[in-house]
């Protein structure tokens, strides 16, 4: 048997159909080494609190469903081991800075909308290039590395929960969206900065950020959105004084010819061993 430790979970409960305000419930569990907060919640639901609600799916830190406020910090429940928290009482609440749908389920609609607002996709002057591509764009590993880390974002929303500016200005675009704006703007395949400016350079946009850096501390995927925001500010300044990186609408496109030829040329291949 592995050793277990008794832990008290203080869980914030709220069902708007019956409760006027949220309340706390305590559940005791013997926690073995290695158990995550998510596994603990499953066990509590199975044995003690069948109506407890939260979101989770992958249980491996890639789907971004299970963001919660654990011991007063925004974290992914599936990536947090209970015993690593080092407290006998573990509090679990829904993410702050979002409305509460029920129990541990926040309303993430603002996150989704802000993300959409910055046009998070490659913008080309000729969009037919994307719809019917004739080949792959050339992008060197160095050009890829310029935005690489920002593509790791899983939209868990922890950064918005941590952000002091979002707490005071709910309409602030926030770290997730701004980091994505940078991700696309610096991609050598993209020419969309001007189109994005409308959202980024607005009253609730980029310049609301006071560089508290809480978002980067909370981010479970090493995206470092604060760094993205900083780089985006620099990009905007350079652009406004005419020193922005010039991009032609297309990098180089490679013909698909050799692949197409291959299909015609090859008869069924010889046997392999």
């Amino acid at each position, binding site marked *: 048997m592995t050793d277990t430790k008794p832990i008290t979970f203080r869980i914030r409960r709220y069902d708007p159909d019956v409760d006027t305000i949220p309340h706390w419930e305590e559940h005791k569990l013997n926690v073995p080494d290695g158990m995550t907060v998510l596994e603990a919640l499953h066990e509590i639901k199975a044995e003690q609190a069948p109506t407890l609600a939260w979101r989770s799916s*992958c249980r491996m830190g890639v789907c971004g469903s299970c963001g919660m406020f654990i011991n007063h910090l925004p974290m992914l429940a599936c990536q947090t081991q209970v015993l690593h928290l080092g407290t006998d009482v573990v509090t679990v609440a829904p993410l702050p800075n979002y409305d509460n*749908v029920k129990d541990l389920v926040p309303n993430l609609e603002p996150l989704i909308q802000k993300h959409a607002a910055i*046009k998070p996709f490659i913008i080309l002057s000729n969009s037919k290039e994307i719809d019917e591509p004739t080949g792959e764009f050339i992008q060197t590993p160095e050009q890829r590395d310029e935005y690489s880390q920002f593509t790791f974002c899983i939209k868990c929303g922890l950064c918005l929960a941590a952000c002091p500016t979002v707490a005071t200005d709910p309409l602030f675009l926030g770290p997730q969206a701004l980091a994505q704006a940078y991700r696309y703007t610096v991609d050598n395949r993209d020419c969309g900065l001007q189109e994005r400016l409308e959202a980024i350079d607005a009253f609730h946009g980029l310049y609301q950020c006071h560089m508290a850096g809480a978002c980067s501390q909370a981010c479970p995927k090493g995206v470092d959105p604060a760094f993205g925001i900083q780089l985006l500010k620099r990009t905007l300044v350079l652009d406004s004084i005419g020193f922005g990186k010039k991009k032609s609408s297309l990098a180089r496109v490679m013909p*698909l010819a050799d692949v197409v030829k291959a*299909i015609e040329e090859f008869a*069924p*291949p010889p046997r392999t*061993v």
Partner: protein
Amino acid sequence: MAKVHQFDVVVVGGGGAGLMAGLYASRTAKTAVISKMYPTRSHTGAAQGGIAAALGNSEGDNPAWHMYDTVKGSDYLGDQDAIEFMTSEAPQAVIELENMGLPFDRTPEGRISQRPFGGHTNNETGKPVRRAAHAADRTGHMILQTLYQQCLKNKVNFFDEYQVLDFIMVNGKAAGVVAVELSTGELHTIHAKAVIFATGGHGRIFEVTSNAYAYTGDGAAILFRKGIPLEDMEFFQFHPTGIYKLGILITEGVRGEGGVLINGKGERFMPRYAPTIKDLASRDVVSRAIYTEIKEGRGVDGKNYVYLDIRPETVNKFAAEDGRTNPDGSKFNLTAEQVLKKLPDIIDFCRVYLGVDPVTQMMPIQPTAHYTMGGIPTNKFGEVVIDDKNTVMPGLYAAGECACVSVHGGNRLGCNSLLDIVVFGKHAGLRAAEYVKTAEFEKLPENAESAARSEFDALRNGSGKENVFDLSNEMKKVMFADVGIYRNEKDMQSALEKVRELKKRFKDVTVSDTGKIFNTELLNAWEFGNLLDIAEVVALSALNRKESRGGHSREDFPERDDKNWLKHTLVWNKNGKLEIDYKPVVITKHQPKARVY
């Protein structure tokens, strides 16, 4: 009364297959994508290793080789017309993704980088070929995000966090679906001319699995209850390298980068099972090898696991022995920095869940239930076919892991699933959009949502003698132990009886949560009902197939038997009784022969 919405095409599922279908259907048809999770939470995001396409960016390759490898990998059960279609479409599909902005890793020249993957070979030398296009070990995540963002660009209509409960069929044609809105508990009827199911797999029938909690086979179970057959359900892939006990996946990319499997005696054992491509043999072969090592007492400390080793010194030692070189012919030399850069998520998983650092320590692994080869039968256009003559049901489509085209046959090759979802998702979308141009809306039945409502009522009104969690644990245990990597008549028979007993006991569960908002207790119970239906079909299909092929390995029939069993299984639900039949495999270019790696 349920709210009613109307669209030409409705796509159920927002993973890679569903988003691709939505993207292409919405080019010309009024389309909605319904997903029980936010689309970017879908399990496509968990795919790590890569997407297969014979781009030939790093070395000579071509789609014909890719086709042959896939046919061979499928143990000749894959339909060759569909496989040829998929492998020929592959380069274009990957280039489309690249154009949409997917951040692929690049070669020094700036082209999409490719890595070797199990079963993908140069057909002339038999050696592994670099065919898997990848974005670190997060390829699925990148595909999912990129496709979702393209959908935003194209203003696709999303119904996020709506769970589909029922399929509406009128006059033998698709007419829509019924869904529950999670945040309110309200039922909605979505009236449509065409319905595309892209709901993913059902790995949650097994105890140890790489699959997400949401992998409960909803789409397949819904259609099955409506009388649509399920194909080749005995074929389930057990991935060789899951984290010990947890089942969380360690990508085959680790072995693609040079990692090797080591048994409890410290030996590299794969050369004994697959002399040519060794640790990169097909998944079924490697899973069985691990299982055999464990069974013969060579697991680590007598336990049910072996090691996966990616420590640079081990990798370089064996690479030198194998004569492995870089694409330019230079000496192969892996460094710790490269491991960190190429496999960041794997490093993370091991640190978080195992407290192991793969750069300096070996990873304890065991085979884990991974991928659903069988599913809703379709042709290569994504149209659902409902009998042994491949008759198409008008307006109904399926794509992705829930579908069985069949391109994976008895065993799927790594990186072929991401390819499958992109290619067949797209074509199902295009085909459906074409269909709705001329099709009419069928008239909705009155109270279209009543069947879904009574399924919920039944769950609320059971006697309460039984509890879903216990039943679920019992099912997972028996399926993993008795319908798992190795199978035999006696165990499968008892597994089937057990599942049937569980189905009876399931009638006695009751859901205590009477709330409407995010009632996960109710939904989990409903999903468990799907898993039970699926588990029964899996066990029955496996019991009936008296041979070993691909992922289906029988101790009592250890050989492949092409004379009697080169055929697809079909199982129907006829008013609660299961009926089984078979249909022929499409063979065009490659006659079956022994499968040696």
